[in-house]
């Protein structure tokens, strides 16, 4: 089965006097209907991968190597026009912080219907009806009332539901979720994860789920990609990864996760020897490629 999203040997560089390599030959595949977890600590390059795929990487960065193929089509270097056609309709995005991702001076209605009217060519009433249905699907009560409200009148969890409804509204083939639960408290996190899984099952959409929470990955994902220092260290089916991690870093990462079922355990940080080794390897890679 060919992958829906196929990233091969992707290099991203920060263009400065001293060019900085942000991604080092990153490869990852997302199959149709699959949820792929992209994990790693802060600065591992998880978010950069998502931004390059979406075409919203910072302006002073540049893809210097590799390709991104989506649905059989190379999307590494698209014109703005072509990308606009793709975003929202075929690739959708769930942002990290629901508190800032909605326009504060616009009612919820226009924020949802914008994407509907743009990609599905619905008229005002059609888009409104559809928005009500969408809000019902993400289990928001009184959708008509929510449509008339402003973002600050909703809680974080409700806002994230609105954003999820927007992301799934055009039945995209791929949804990229960048730590969608990080800014929420734990009980709401669980509900949001359930919601994402439910929507994924109903629509068959593929999801690239970016997180640093291994617990979330274990619950949600079919396949896991572990990143560190801008490169992929391990890529394996979730069951296999948790049962027998293939890379020392993955093992250290799993050991560093606090477990409620083993309260006596000491917390084990990632060993400094390991991070040093990873940094050396990265330097060796840079010497080879640049």
């Amino acid at each position, binding site marked *: 089965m060919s992958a829906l999203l196929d990233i091969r040997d992707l290099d991203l560089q920060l263009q400065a006097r001293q060019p900085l390599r942000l991604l080092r030959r990153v490869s990852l595949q997302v199959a149709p209907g699959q949820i792929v977890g992209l994990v790693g600590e802060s600065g591992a390059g998880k978010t950069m991968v998502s931004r390059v795929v979406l075409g919203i990487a910072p*302006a002073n960065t540049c893809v210097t190597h590799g390709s991104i193929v989506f649905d059989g089509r190379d999307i590494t270097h698209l014109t703005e026009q072509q990308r606009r056609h793709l975003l929202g309709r075929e690739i959708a995005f769930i*942002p990290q912080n629901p508190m800032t991702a909605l*326009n504060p*001076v616009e009612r919820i209605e226009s924020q949802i219907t914008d994407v509907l009217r*743009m990609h599905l060519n619905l008229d005002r009433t059609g888009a409104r009806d559809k928005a009500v249905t969408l809000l019902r699907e993400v289990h928001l009560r009184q959708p008509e009332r929510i449509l008339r409200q402003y973002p600050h009148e909703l809680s974080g969890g409700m806002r994230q539901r609105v954003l999820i409804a927007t992301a799934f509204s055009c039945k995209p083939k791929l949804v990229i979720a960048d730590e969608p639960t990080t800014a929420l408290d734990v009980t709401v996190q669980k509900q949001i994860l359930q919601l994402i899984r439910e929507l994924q099952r109903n629509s068959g959409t593929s999801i690239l789920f970016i997180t640093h929470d291994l617990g979330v990955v274990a619950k949600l994902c079919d396949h896991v990609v572990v990143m560190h220092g801008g490169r992929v260290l391990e890529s394996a089916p979730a069951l296999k990864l948790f049962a027998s991690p293939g890379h020392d870093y993955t093992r250290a990462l799993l050991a560093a996760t606090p477990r409620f079922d083993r309260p006596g355990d000491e917390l084990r940080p990632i060993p400094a020897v390991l991070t040093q080794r990873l940094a050396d390897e990265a330097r060796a890679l840079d010497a080879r490629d640049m």
Partner: protein
Amino acid sequence: MKAIASLRNPRVLFGVLVVLALVVAAAAAPWLSPNDPLEQDLMNSFQSPGAGGGGQAHPLGTDSLGRDILSRLIYGARPALIVAFVAAVFAGLLGTALGLAAGYFGGRLDAAVSRLVDIWMSFPSVLLCIVLAAVLGAGLHTVVIAIIVIDWTRFCRVVRAETMLQKSHDYVASAVTIGLGPGRILASEILPNVAPLLLTLFTLEMGIAIVVEAILSFVGLSVSSGMPTWGGIIQEGRLYVNQAWWLMAAPMACIIVAVLGLNALGDGLREVIDPVKAR
């Protein structure tokens, strides 16, 4: 309903009353003013405020030619209001368009616009006015054009900075990821967020325009000398300030109250309109 509720804000109330007074004075000047503002009565010149004489009441006294000050002030609201409104609208349109584009697209466009604003602002504005007046001839249109030409930079700078700030917010990135183009994002995402600021700037600019109009008519670059303007009345009163202080004091008070009212309105509306602050 919301409009009425916003009047509970004391600044908005004060501003609305001032603007209302200005508009009424300008629109109904012929009916409101007790005398013809141009009618001279040399027998009754320099009458002090409140003193009735010559069979006619002059609540604010008369000037060197015996013209009624109150009537002249009421008629003077016309050029003040017209200039303030028209100049602020066009300066706002020009500055906002350039500021939005510069702030959103950045890069060379931003550099070009910003340098232009820098150079523009370093040019002495009074000189610019006089050059314009020399080219276009004195008159109300000259005053309006002069204010637009000078003050668009004020809008441009502030709108540019605010646009850059808004652009860095996640909701703009979200708009990009649902496939909206830059035109749509500027018009329907960023502009509404800049609007409260624009409103404040606009009323502030109206206040500034009233002052500039007064200055230009003070130096004789506005409407012809017969027509009453606040700056013109101050200029005429300047010669007789030792005998008749009210000739300068009355129009000055008008200008001060008008500018205060407009500034208060801008500040108050900003508080009231912002949906986040209005919680």
